[in-house]
């Protein structure tokens, strides 16, 4: 696949360089690895620091969500690879304002180990209290009985939103973690893949798929899904995704949800809104109220084709966090 890049080995470094030059009032790189970035607008004393991170290639995830109302800093890995403990620790030290730091990341073996190691080091070497909450929203990635094994996909966005707001409200570490975990508990996603992406270094498609096929339940890095089959209409795809989600979590008539229809990279907004249209129909048929909708590219997989649907069931507290304004370079909410 064609890429508008220079040396494939430098894509992450060059992206970050461009990113901080484009938004100098919002974000800055810490000296050191260059993979540790924090808000340019100093975190408030006494506020719990929100640290996010993961592999590159998911932009606007994750660098795009550092800013007022969301994260204070981000640790950036290679493409589709967890950051090492070094930048995680660098960010931790920079954003700890005496109230501790909460790590938010997706439930992948690599992230679990690297963030885990960093958390130990922060505690032992720096005396910084660290809390953690993982995104495990992908219902296609493991059965309900093994939710702790599920992958984190686009639902991570809602967890950032909730935890970022909670920290901004002045919640302490335990309560920020509680809200983040509740957000994850209440969030379910499922995706569909239409076309692969390719890593700049290999140029090879991340998965194989036929001319007229789609893959239901595909992961955010091209991990295999539940089934591969003929491409269906947007309505049938939306039916499938929403029905699988609703079979996994109890959302009743009168309940309120936040909806995210997330593009994986190359799927036009036109198609995302066509999918949203059907999602809305299903929910309103069931008497489920959409409290707020997000439609667009929130967590991508390079130029992968397809989308995911995410529902977060809301209680009063989560509603408050969803309404909280945000000002990040790649996401602004008034």
């Amino acid at each position, binding site marked *: 696949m064609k890429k508008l890049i220079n040396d494939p080995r430098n894509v992450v470094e060059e992206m970050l360089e461009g990113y901080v030059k484009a938004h100098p009032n919002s974000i800055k790189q810490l000296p050191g690895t260059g993979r540790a970035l924090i808000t340019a607008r100093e975190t408030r004393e006494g506020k719990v620091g929100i640290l996010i991170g993961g592999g590159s290639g998911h932009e606007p995830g994750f660098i795009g969500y550092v800013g007022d109302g969301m994260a204070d800093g981000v640790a950036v890995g290679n*493409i589709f690879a*967890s950051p090492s403990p*070094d930048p995680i620790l660098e960010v931790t030290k920079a954003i700890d304002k005496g109230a501790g730091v909460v790590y938010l990341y997706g439930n992948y073996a*690599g992230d679990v*180990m690297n963030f885990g190691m960093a958390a130990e080091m922060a505690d032992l070497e720096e005396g910084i209290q660290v809390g953690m909450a993982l995104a495990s929203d992908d219902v296609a*990635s493991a059965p309900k009985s093994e939710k702790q094994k599920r992958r984190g996909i686009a639902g991570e966005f809602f967890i950032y939103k909730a935890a970022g707001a909670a920290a901004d409200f002045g919640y302490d570490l335990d309560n920020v973690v509680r809200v983040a975990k509740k957000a994850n508990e209440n969030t379910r996603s499922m995706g569909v893949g239409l076309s692969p992406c390719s890593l700049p270094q290999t140029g090879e498609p991340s998965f*194989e798929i036929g001319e007229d096929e789609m893959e239901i339940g595909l*992961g955010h890095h091209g991990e*295999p899904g539940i089934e591969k089959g003929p491409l269906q209409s947007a309505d049938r795809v939306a039916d499938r995704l929403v029905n699988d989600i609703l079979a996994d979590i109890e959302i009743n008539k009168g309940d309120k949800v936040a909806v995210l229809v997330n593009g994986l990279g190359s799927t036009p907004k036109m198609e995302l809104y066509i999918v949203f249209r059907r999602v809305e129909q299903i929910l309103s048929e069931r008497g489920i109220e959409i409290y707020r909708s997000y439609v667009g590219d929130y967590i991508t997989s390079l130029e992968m084709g397809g989308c995911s649907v995410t529902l977060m069931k809301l209680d009063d507290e989560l509603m408050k966090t969803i309404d909280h304004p945000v000002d990040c370079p790649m996401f602004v909410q008034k």
Partner: protein
Amino acid sequence: MEFTAKDWKDFFKEIVSLIEEEKDYLCQLDRKLGDGDHGVTMSIGWQAINEKIDNELANEEDPAKISITVGKTFLSAVGSSVGPLYATGFMRGAKVLKNKSVAGDQDLAEYWIAFGKGIKERGQAEVGDKTMMDTLEPFFKELERKFAETNDFLSSFKAAVLEAKKGMEFTKELMSKKGRSSRLGDRSIGAQDPGATSAYLILAAFLSFVEKRMAKAI
């Protein structure tokens, strides 16, 4: 069998070339099961190690220091799943080498047992989970058993590498049974775990490195 700082560096250099050769193959395996980056990740890590060996470690005479640096460098460069795993392996191995400028049979056996056990501790994976543990656990168990019996490093390591190979190959069968791959169903048959493969490559490379050295020595 005597293994010096230079031997370690030469061995690590061999892995650097080996990984460059196998990079595409490892990516190809990972595309089937994961996100397709395993070869890229290994390459980034070992290229960083190469750089260290040529510069910072050029005059380093302490094998423990070399192995620690290899682990730390790998981790810093790649993060990923295998960063913490291999890093822990090389760092636990380094402990065995502490204050020894030359490693004998006993040290080498302990090094590789510590390597495997360290990774197990870090990753908490079980045999059958379809990870590099399927290569490493049969490997270090056989090494431990055979070396206790014979006290001969080379023959024990050789036997252990055979077990490693079987374990790696067995990951093909494991496909449809557990974890991430469990949802793959029929499509999974025949795909081998990339981490199990890279782990085997490293062990096999050590074996052939040692054999070559022995041949030269004769």
